[in-house]
């Protein structure tokens, strides 16, 4: 390879890269590649009949990694939705933990096998537990931010959802509440153009999710969700505003999912293969690789090494999770209520 790694001249041609910093850019890329490989393996183990169900993130990796990198993991509170596996990886959930989740093992830190996969929860990263009903975490985000502010923390609360969620009552009630109280929340919408089968034009009469922000008197921005740098910059601005007491922001990342809604969905019923193919031309992973190479931050050798490392990581995580013991049925009545007596 003749590329000069990270040359100032090459980076200067892409000022956004310069602003983000090469270490962060490379970290973003690694997570995107790892997420895609884990994601593809999840579909394989589902199709092999080893797990009953998966719900994944392919196509939305850039939006998620860009947002995660704007947060302080373990300090900021995070309320993800079920498509956020890349976000979770970027915050610090391990591949092994993600696979334990997919295999519903006892050791799954999200729920010990109680919830469907991708219903994330992890106290060490302040990731609050979520459910399947769409949008219910949006009021929780306002409440979590209220608690953080009352204690005088400088943490923000990050809340993620799809564009379908913005039609729910809880979106309206939660965003309005946070706006009225000027709470430090980032409302992050990954607009992948479909809520299962229903396209955006059947979901809302406005042109964009970001336009909804005006109704709450808060800033709303739309960014290219296939560009992790653009997402990082938009979310960083929202985080800085929130930390400074400027209240919530609605950030919309325009993206696309390459896989069906879940392993139980057949997306050919509502969108054409050519539309999916067309969208894949803006697959965020090759786009980012090309950009890094053009900036002299990446070369074929590094790519080969990364692919090998990622394949090994995915194999190890899958093998570990596959052999890990399932939850003990004798525990099924535990944790209905607190097991220790209430503090006096």
């Amino acid at each position: 390879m003749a590329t000069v790694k990270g040359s100032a001249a090459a980076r200067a041609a892409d000022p956004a890269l310069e602003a983000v910093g090469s270490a962060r850019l490379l970290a973003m890329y690694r997570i995107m590649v790892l997420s895609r490989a884990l994601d593809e393996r999840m579909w394989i183990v589902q199709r092999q009949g080893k797990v009953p169900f998966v719900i994944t993130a392919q196509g939305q990796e850039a939006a998620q990694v860009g947002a995660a990198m704007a947060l302080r993991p373990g300090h900021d509170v995070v309320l993800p939705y079920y498509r956020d596996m890349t976000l979770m990886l970027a915050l610090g959930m391990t591949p092994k933990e993600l696979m334990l989740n997919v295999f519903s093992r006892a050791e799954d830190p999200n729920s010990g096998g109680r919830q469907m996969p991708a219903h994330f929860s992890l106290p060490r990263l302040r990731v609050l537990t979520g459910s399947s009903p769409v949008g219910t975490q949006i009021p929780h985000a306002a409440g979590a931010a209220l608690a953080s502010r009352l204690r005088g923390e400088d943490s923000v609360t990050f809340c993620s959802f799809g564009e379908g969620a913005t039609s729910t009552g809880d979106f309206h009630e939660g965003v309005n509440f946070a706006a009225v109280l000027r709470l430090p929340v980032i409302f992050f919408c990954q607009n992948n153009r479909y809520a299962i089968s229903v396209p955006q034009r059947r979901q809302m009469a406005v042109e964009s999710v970001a336009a909804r922000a005006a109704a709450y008197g808060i800033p709303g921005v739309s960014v290219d969700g296939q560009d992790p740098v653009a997402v990082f910059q938009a979310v960083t601005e929202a985080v800085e505003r929130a930390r400074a007491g400027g209240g919530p922001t609605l950030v919309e990342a325009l993206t696309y999912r390459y896989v069906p809604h879940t392993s139980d969905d057949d997306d050919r019923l509502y969108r054409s293969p050519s539309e999916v193919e067309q969208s894949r031309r803006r697959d965020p992973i090759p786009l980012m690789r090309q950009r890094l190479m053009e900036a002299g931050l990446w070369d074929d050798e590094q790519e080969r090494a990364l692919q090998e490392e990622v394949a090994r990581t995915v194999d190890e995580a899958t093998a570990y999770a596959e052999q890990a013991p399932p939850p003990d049925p004798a525990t099924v009545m535990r944790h209905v209520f607190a097991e220790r007596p209430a503090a006096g």
Partner: protein
Amino acid sequence: MAVKRMIEAIREALDEEMARDSRVIVLGEDVGVKGGVFVATRGLLEKYGPDRVIDTPLSESAIVGVAIGAAMNGLRPVAEIQFADFIHPAMDQIVNEAARIRYRSNGAWGCPLVVRAPYGAGIRGGLYHSQSVESFFAHVPGLKVVIPATPADAKGLLKAAIRDEDPVIFLEPKRAYRLIQGEVPDGDWVVPIGPARVAREGRHLTAVAYGMMLHLTLQAAEQVAREGISVEVVDLRTLAPLDRETILGSVRKTGRLMIVHEDNRTLGMGAEIAALAAEEALYDLDAPVRRVTMPDVPATPFAAVLEDAVLPDVDRIARAMRELARE
């Protein structure tokens, strides 16, 4: 010990818990400047400030949903729903979220939340200011459902609810707010969630009641006592988890059981208590179980004659006691 109204006992509990624990906040419609439509929160805003006593937008789902997020993130919120009739938009947040947070996270997260709501009929409140919603919530594992009938229990149980690690639906019989006075012990008076209370001892039959119906049941018991019928009255206080032992202990003693509630008949608490007796004490029963309830009308009508036609009263309860004692 001082004699207080129920509404005063509730206000005292909130005040004392807010003073005791800086994690306790109060939020809901009109709870701040106005002090609540029943003035349960009067004076709290002045004392604890707008960060802890929060007048919210008119958004029941967010009132509960925000409280849930705050509870997961370390606070002890007390959310007020202005009338139990308005709790339904928050049903998803209560049932799908609050009740399931501990279970679904395998014990990693908890939701120490109290949802207070005035409930019940008898105040000419019509369809949407009279509802009894307790059975919806008592059906959901993960929720505790508490209904006090006396000022002392209102104070002690509300303090216990605020200190509880899990979500508590605290339903206040609004007709009792000012009507019912009683002695409230001084000091840090806490009544544990769970145990029912034998409000009146008796030999011939057991009448289980809660909330405002407890008082009517006690009056009916007094009436029939003059005719030689000795009624044991059990005040449930906590509907979920149900104090099975106290109910069964009383039924085994008297051999006759009736349940009184102003909730609808079908799948109300009476149905569960009757099933409990059938499963655990059938051979102790000397007569079929009876229920005195609101009939299965969609809600309480407004006109006085219509409300009186559906709401159990002392005469109806006393009549049922006489019939049950004779069987």
